[in-house]
């Protein structure tokens, strides 16, 4: 079993996609390579010119296509090669993170970090910590199997929201636990 991260008993190995900026984190990852810093092999890097280029759609699509965790990393504030790309990214992802959390996605599945071109060791730690964290959370089948759910769940003709002004299924909120008519997840 390679490098530092022991596999769990069940042998689940998370698939993590990393969206990184070309000037800082990608070069930092290169430095980690040249310094032969060993790290978990679960992460696949997608190179973008800047964190400013990273779009929330990339992350939802990656989850849809089977990623269990995401890393988004780029230049430290003020170090951006394009002056302000990371500032825009910081606002965009602060909002996106709260949205996903509100929708029920565990925020620790998505790791945000600043890694500069000279921080090879920090990149190794970001990778290893993210893999350990996501491995503990288990496979994110809940997201990629959403399409399957619709077929199995009973037609949700829940009466409670028909005709109610707010269109808000009050009962579904009040009920502790799973709202009626909601999906019975099929855990892998």
């Amino acid at each position, binding site marked *: *079993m*390679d*490098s530092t991260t022991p596999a769990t008993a069940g042998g689940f190995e998370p*698939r993590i*996609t990393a969206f990184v900026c070309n*000037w*800082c984190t*990608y*070069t930092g*990852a*290169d430095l*980690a*390579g*040249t310094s*032969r*810093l*060993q*790290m978990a*092999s679960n992460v*696949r*890097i*997608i*190179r*973008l*010119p*800047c964190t*400013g*280029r*990273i*779009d929330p759609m*990339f992350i939802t*699509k*990656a989850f849809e*296509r*089977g*990623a269990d965790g995401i890393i988004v990393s780029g*230049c430290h504030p*003020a*170090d*951006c*090669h*394009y*002056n*302000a*790309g990371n500032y*825009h*990214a910081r606002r*965009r992802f602060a909002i996106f993170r709260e949205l996903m959390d509100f929708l029920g996605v565990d925020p620790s599945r998505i790791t945000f970090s600043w890694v*500069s*071109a*000279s*921080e090879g060791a920090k990149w*190794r730690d970001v990778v290893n910590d993210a893999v350990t964290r996501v491995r503990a959370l288990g496979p994110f089948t809940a997201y*990629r199997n959403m399409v399957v759910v619709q077929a199995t769940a009973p037609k949700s003709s829940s009466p409670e929201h028909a005709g109610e002004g707010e269109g808000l299924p009050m009962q579904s909120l009040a009920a502790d636990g799973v709202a009626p008519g909601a999906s019975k997840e099929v855990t892998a």
Partner: protein
Amino acid sequence: MARIGVFVCHCGENIGRTVDCHAVAEGCKDVPGVVHSVDYKYMCSDPGQQMVKKAIEEKGLTGVVVAACSPHMHEKTFRRAAAGAGLNAFLCEMANVREHCSWIHEDREKATVKAIDITRTIIEKVKHNVPLSTIRIPVTRRALVIGGGIAGIQAALDIADGGREVILVEKGPSIGGHMSQLSETFPTLDCSQCILTPRMVEVYQHPRIKLYAYSEVESVEGYIGNFKVTVRRKARSVDEEKCNGCGACTQVCPNKKIPSEFDCGLGKRTAIYVPFPQAVPNLPTVDRNKCLLFMNRAKGRPDTCKKCAEACEKGAIDFDQQDRLITEDVGAIVVATGYQLYTIGKDQPKDNLKGYGEYGYGTIPDVIDGLQFERLASASGPTSGKILRPSDGKVPKRIVFLQCIGSRDPQKGMEYCSKICCMYVAKHTMLYHHKVHDGVATVFYMDIRAAGKGYEEFSRRAIEEEGAQYIRGRVSRMWREGDVIKILGFDTLEGEPIEMDADMVVLATAMRPQPGIDVLAQKLSVSYDQHGFINEAHPKLRPVETNTAGIYVAGACQAPRDIPDAVAMASATASKVLGLFANEMLEREPTVARVDEGTCAGCFHCERVCAYGAVEHKDIKDRAGNVVRVIAYVNPGVCQGCGTCEATCPSKSVELQGFTDEQIWSEIQALGV
């Protein structure tokens, strides 16, 4: 239908050792669109590149994927090879299976699976690459050199001698940098002023060098070939045209007790001063924090002392002179801001730096640093070259030199070696021996690093012929008893603790970059490391370039450097700059954004997020000529290709060539379950 060629490199054993390259090549054979998938020991070698060319010609490839090292290493090589075989360079991409895979994993099976994944993502991406042609933009053939030390001077002279105009900006009143403070230089012991001042005069008299001394870079906009730099010419309170450098003003100035920065506080200077006799430009400067007139003005009191103005026959003193902001267009920038010495005091500029409580945090008299010793030994120094104790002016009979103060000491914050201290301490022992024949020099060292040409012989000479006592070990504590400095150390060769008395202690403190380097780096959007040294593009292959095109680095602002290094790097940057200016137009990566005029709604979010102002408004007119819609237009010359506009555009109407949504989407798909 795409016809992709995949070439997997063993990179000798760098990749081959942990990744089964043949399996990767086989693994990509079945990917739709791949018509050629091979592996080879050295893809970047000439035969390797020939393989790519042959495959392009024979199989009519429409895309090439080279699974090897980082694109930062050989993307240019393979793109040139592809172009050589008639395939558009931008249809060739690299899959990083070395730095991001083989080097960081040991489990061969996992590394191979990962390598196949990485290669497949790039294959999917290449399918959506479109041919691009390089953008040609005009180059302003004038260079800016920041920093007037030996590195800056050398770079400016070489560029100017190469026939191009140079603007040299120096923060201090005169150029010369730290080298002008030295007495002699190792390993030849020739006098620093004698080899430096001719170069300084050459800069001053060079027709193509515009010297802005006592000035700083205020802001930098633009990009390679088209930088717009604003320089703040700080007010000297002396009119440069009128002053003939007679120095009468400096004689009459009443405030003579100001510690001179040039003499590292050992000598004194007046409020209106010329830093050192050979200063270039030979212009006095009024220190507005110490001049009585300005101190009164600050308190709103009337002007009292105007002695310097009265003494000046040329009427050159101008107390109302203001800072001037000057904008210059340049095509390339050389950063040569040099170093400063680490101090052992209690409060440090950065919180990861610690002072030396063991040595009294710098409060013990007669404990000085290397530059101060240089000033004592220098003929133009405060003691006219005699080695005297700053506290009581006596000749020190016993001097103890301590190597590695701050350097190679992670607890204090600098884990690197400062490279020059072993040599200048050996030089100091020689200078001391020449001037105080019965003086005993003792050096506490860890190991002597004398790797330059003639360096080892120089340090052996200090030990064998000039009688320096070298003790391998560190000093654990130091304190003052009476007028003697007590040294408590350990001799690791004898295995014994040592307690000795010293009349003077010289600390070889670490080299750090100049304060404010991070602010300058941010203005230039150049990356720097945790100590503040500027990051070179590649430590071995591109040592004088930075990751920001058009910005080069020379001397001690990049890492601890001695004078030969600084001069060599300066000449290297000059050759890079002259190469850049060799042709009229500059070819630039065509990875710029382009707007889909059909779907752009004209909300101009893209304009708001663009850091370069590359987005313009464009009117769409109907046949009758009246404006139907106003949409965004990206000026390819100005766009730097960051892609923030594409991520912000709600309707995804703007596409960054090379990183379009389709390409990224296909990479994500390729990683799908």
